[in-house]
C-alpha cells in the first residue's frame, strides 16, 4: 500500500497504532522468495486478538517454516473501515501492509459465536466473495479453527476448511498438501477433496445435510469419500509441542499485556455446563522443567515484567507447588510478577500464596456457579459451601476484605429457591466476616456477585437442554436483586441480550448461514460490543429468512435427535453425554478424572490423565 495514503488514513482514526504493525518480534520475510502467504485473521479488534494465546502459537509455528509467511489481520474499527472504503483500500495484513486478497490462505480463529458477522465483514473488506461456492480456483482458501468449530454449521457456507481440535500439526499438513496440489495444477475442488482425508479436517461442502419436516436434522451424508466422522486433533506430548520462544510485544496496550505460559490443556473437572471442560479432553500437562524454560525465554525476549500461567484450572496442575516455587526463584530476581489465574486457595500454602501477585492484586474469587448445593450437584460443580466458607475465613483472618463470586443463571432444573440461594450464600459470607474477631478492624467487607447467563453448548451433557427466555432471565435477575439484603453486596449483571444470540448459534445448523449474511448486510458487526450490538437488526434478519430463533434455544432435544454437529467427533461419546445428562437430573455428581474415570471416551488418544497413575 502507498505509504502516504496509509499515513493519511491513520491520521484520521482513533488508536492508529492498531493498524501499523512493526512491533517487537513481529516477522518480516523477503517477498521476492516463493512464499505461502497466510493471513491469520482474528475477527475482533487488535487489543482483543493480540491477547489471545492461540494466535501466538500458530504465528510462531508458521513463521518458523521458511516457505510460509504468516501475518496478522484484525477487524478494523468503524472509523478505519470508513477510511479504507473511501480510499478503496482492501483489508491488509499488519506485517507487509499487502492486501490479503492475493494470499494463499485466509485463516480465522473462532473464539466466540458473536464474532461470526465479523468474519463476513473481513471477507467483504478483503474483496472476496463471502461464500465458499462463489470463490474460484484463484481465491484464497478460507480456513477456520478454534473452539466454535465444535459446531461450525452456521458458518458452513462461508468457510472452505475447518480444523477440529488443536491446530499445531493439521494446519501445516494442509499447507503442504496445498503446495503439492498447486504444483500439480489441481483445482480447488480437488484440493478440498484430498484435504478432507487429513485427520482433523472438515470440509463442509463435502457433507450433504437433509432435514425433517419439523426442521431437525434427518441425515448427514459424506460425499466424495470424505470421512463419516471428523475426529479432532490433539497434541499428544505437551513437552514436545511447539511453544513460541518469543511473543510479539504490542506497541499499544492490549487487554492481556503480559507473557503467558501454558501449563496444561483440558480439565479434569467435568462441570456439566462447560464446553471447554469436554472438547479439550484429555488433560495433558507440561512438566515444570519445560514450563520454566519456556517462561524464562519469553521474559527474556519480550521484556515483560509479568507472566501468567494459563490453563482451565491452575489448581489442578499436579506439581503446582513445585512449579511455583521454581518459578518464584527466578521471577523475584528478575522482578517478574507471577499470576496464577483461577486458583483455588484451599490446598495451597499461605506463604506461597502471598508471593503470587494475582492473588495479592485482585483479592479472592470463587466460582460456585449456583446458589444451592442441589444445583451445584446438578451441574457437577464440586465445590461445597463449607469449602467456600473455610477459604473465606482463612482469607479474612489474613487481612482480605473483598470477595468476588461468580454464578450462572438459567441452569437446567433451576428454581427460584436456587436464585434466592445466591443471595443467601453471599449474605452468609458477610455474616462470617463480622463473626470473626481477627478480621481487619475498622474495615467493611465487600462481596461482589457476578451472574452470567447460561448458554447450552454442544459436546456438554446440557446440549439437550432448553435455554431460558430473555423475559424469564429478567424475572430471575429481579428476583435475585430483591433478595439481596445487605448493602455490602454488589450485584453485577448484564441485561445480556447477546446470550440469546449466542445460544442460537451455539446449537445452530446450516440454515443460519443465510441469517448471518442477512444480518451483516443490515449492518451487524462487532456483535460482542455493547455499543455495536443491535438485537432489532438481528430479529429483522431472522424474520427476513423466515427462521424462528427460538427453534434453536427454547426447544428440549431428545437423546435420539440427530444434532447438526453429529459428524464432529471430539472424543467424548454421545452415550457418555446422555449418561451425564441423566445423572444431572438425578442430582448426582460424577467424580473428576483423577478420582475415577467416567469413561468419556477420550482415553482413545492413549495419553494424558487417562493413563496417569493415581
Amino acid at each position, binding site marked *: 500500500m502507498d505509504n*502516504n495514503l496509509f499515513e493519511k488514513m491513520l491520521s484520521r482514526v482513533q488508536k492508529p497504532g492498531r493498524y501499523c504493525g512493526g512491533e*517487537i518480534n513481529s516477522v518480516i520475510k523477503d517477498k521476492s522468495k516463493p512464499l505461502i502467504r497466510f493471513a491469520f485473521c482474528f475477527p475482533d479488534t487488535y487489543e482483543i486478538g493480540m491477547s489471545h494465546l492461540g494466535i501466538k502459537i500458530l504465528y510462531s509455528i508458521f513463521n518458523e517454516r521458511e516457505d510460509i509467511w504468516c501475518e496478522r489481520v484484525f477487524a478494523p474499527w468503524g472509523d478505519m473501515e470508513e477510511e479504507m472504503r473511501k480510499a478503496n483500500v482492501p483489508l491488509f495484513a499488519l506485517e507487509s501492509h499487502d492486501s490479503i486478497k492475493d494470499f494463499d490462505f485466509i485463516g480465522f480463529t473462532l473464539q466466540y459465536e458473536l464474532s461470526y458477522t465479523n468474519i463476513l465483514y473481513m471477507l467483504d473488506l478483503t474483496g472476496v466473495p463471502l461464500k465458499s461456492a462463489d470463490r474460484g480456483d484463484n481465491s484464497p482458501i478460507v480456513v477456520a479453527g478454534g473452539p466454535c468449530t465444535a459446531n461450525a454449521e452456521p458458518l458452513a457456507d462461508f468457510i472452505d476448511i475447518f480444523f477440529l481440535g488443536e491446530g499445531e500439526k493439521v494446519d501445516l499438513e494442509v499447507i503442504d498438501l496445498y503446495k503439492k496440489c498447486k504444483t500439480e495444477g489441481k483445482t480447488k475442488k480437488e484440493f478440498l477433496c484430498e484435504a478432507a482425508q487429513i485427520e482433523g479436517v472438515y470440509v463442509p461442502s463435502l457433507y450433504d445435510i437433509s432435514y425433517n419436516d419439523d426442521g431437525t436434522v434427518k441425515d448427514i451424508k459424506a460425499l466424495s469419500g470424505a470421512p463419516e466422522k471428523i475426529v479432532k486433533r490433539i497434541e499428544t506430548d505437551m513437552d514436545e509441542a511447539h511453544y513460541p520462544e518469543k511473543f510479539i510485544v504490542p506497541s499499544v*496496550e492490549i487487554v492481556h499485556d503480559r507473557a503467558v505460559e501454558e501449563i496444561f490443556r483440558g480439565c479434569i473437572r467435568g462441570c456439566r455446563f462447560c464446553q471447554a471442560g469436554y472438547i479439550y479432553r484429555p488433560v495433558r500437562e507440561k512438566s515444570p522443567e519445560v514450563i520454566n524454560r519456556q517462561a524464562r525465554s519469553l521474559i527474556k525476549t519480550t521484556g515483560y515484567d509479568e507472566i501468567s500461567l494459563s490453563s482451565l484450572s491452575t489448581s489442578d496442575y499436579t506439581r503446582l507447588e513445585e512449579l511455583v516455587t521454581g518459578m518464584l526463584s527466578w521471577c523475584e530476581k528478575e522482578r517478574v510478577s507471577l499470576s496464577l489465574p483461577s486458583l483455588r486457595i484451599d490446598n495451597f500454602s499461605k506463604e506461597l500464596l502471598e508471593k503470587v501477585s494475582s492473588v495479592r492484586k485482585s483479592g479472592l474469587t470463587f466460582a460456585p456457579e449456583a446458589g444451592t448445593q442441589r444445583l451445584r450437584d446438578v451441574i457437577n460443580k464440586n465445590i461445597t459451601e463449607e469449602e467456600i466458607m473455610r477459604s473465606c475465613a482463612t482469607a479474612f483472618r489474613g487481612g482480605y476484605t473483598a470477595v468476588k463470586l461468580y454464578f450462572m443463571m438459567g441452569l437446567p432444573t433451576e428454581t427460584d429457591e436456587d436464585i434466592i440461594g445466591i443471595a443467601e450464600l453471599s449474605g452468609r459470607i458477610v455474616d462470617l466476616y463480622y463473626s470473626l474477631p481477627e478480621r481487619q478492624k475498622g474495615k467493611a467487607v465487600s462481596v461482589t456477585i457476578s451472574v452470567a447467563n447460561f448458554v447450552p453448548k454442544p459436546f456438554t451433557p446440557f446440549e439437550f437442554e432448553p435455554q431460558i427466555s430473555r423475559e424469564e432471565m429478567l424475572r430471575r435477575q429481579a428476583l435475585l436483586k430483591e433478595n439481596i439484603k445487605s448493602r455490602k453486596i454488589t450485584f453485577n449483571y448484564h441485561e445480556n441480550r447477546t446470550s440469546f444470540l449466542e445460544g442460537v448459534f451455539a446449537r445452530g445448523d446450516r440454515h443460519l448461514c443465510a441469517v448471518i449474511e442477512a444480518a451483516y448486510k443490515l449492518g451487524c458487526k462487532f456483535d460482542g460490543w455493547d455499543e455495536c450490538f443491535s438485537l432489532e437488526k438481528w430479529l429483522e434478519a431472522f424474520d427476513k429468512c423466515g427462521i424462528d430463533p427460538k427453534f434453536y434455544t427454547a426447544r428440549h432435544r431428545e437423546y435420539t435427535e440427530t444434532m447438526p454437529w453429529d459428524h464432529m467427533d471430539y472424543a467424548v461419546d454421545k452415550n457418555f453425554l446422555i449418561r451425564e445428562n441423566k445423572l444431572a437430573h438425578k442430582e448426582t455428581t460424577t467424580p473428576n478424572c483423577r478420582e475415577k474415570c467416567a469413561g468419556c471416551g477420550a482415553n482413545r488418544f492413549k495419553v494424558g490423565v487417562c493413563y496417569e497413575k493415581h
Partner: protein
Amino acid sequence: MKNIRLFYKKTGNAKYVSHLDTVRFMSRLLRRAGLPVWYTEGFNPHLYITFALPLSLGMKSEYEIADIRLTDDNYPCECICELLNQNSTPDYCFFSAAEPEKKLTELTFARFVVSFQDEGSFYGALESFMAQKEILVEKRTKKGDIKLINAAEDIIDYEVKKDQNTQLHITLPAGNNKNVNPDLIIKKFLGKTECFYEINRVLLLDSDKKPLK
C-alpha cells in the same frame, strides 16, 4: 549509581504510539537489553525512567530524551546505544547515551518542522499568516476549560521554507512552565482547508537555546 540520559529518535509507526505506551515500550526495551537499570524502592518498585517532554500522538521526533539510572557505576556508556538499538525497532533509534549535563527542568524551548503536503501552494499564505501580530488560538488549560491565547506572542522564531512542499520551521516555549503545541497554530492556519501535514520535533533546547544535553 549513575544517571544516564538517552537520546533517541521516534519516527515511523512510533508516531502513533502514545506517551503512556512509549513508557511501556522503553521499560520493556531496557529489560530486554539487560542493562543494570535501577528500580525505585518501596511498596511497588518499578523501573526508573523519566522523560523530558511527552510527544503528542501523531508527531515524530528526532530529539527525544529519557533519563534512567544504572546501578553499576562503571557501566560503559559507549555500549548502551548499540545494545538498545539491537533490541529496539527501527522506529525508536538511539543516537547518544551520556551522563546528563543539565537538569531536565532546564528544558525551555522546542523546535519543530511542519511539512505540508501542498505542493508549495501554501507558501505565500503561510508567510502572511505567520507575519501577523495576533494569532488567536484556543488552548485547553490544565483545569480543562478553553482559553483564547495570542500564539504570535509565544513564537520564539520561525521561518517559512519551500522546496516541493511548504515547510514551517518554528521554535516555541516547551517544558513545564510554558508549553505551546505547534498544532494549535497549524490548525488555525488551515481552518477548513484539508491538507495532510506532518510535525517533526527536531530539537529540545535549554534556556540558552542550545540543545538540551
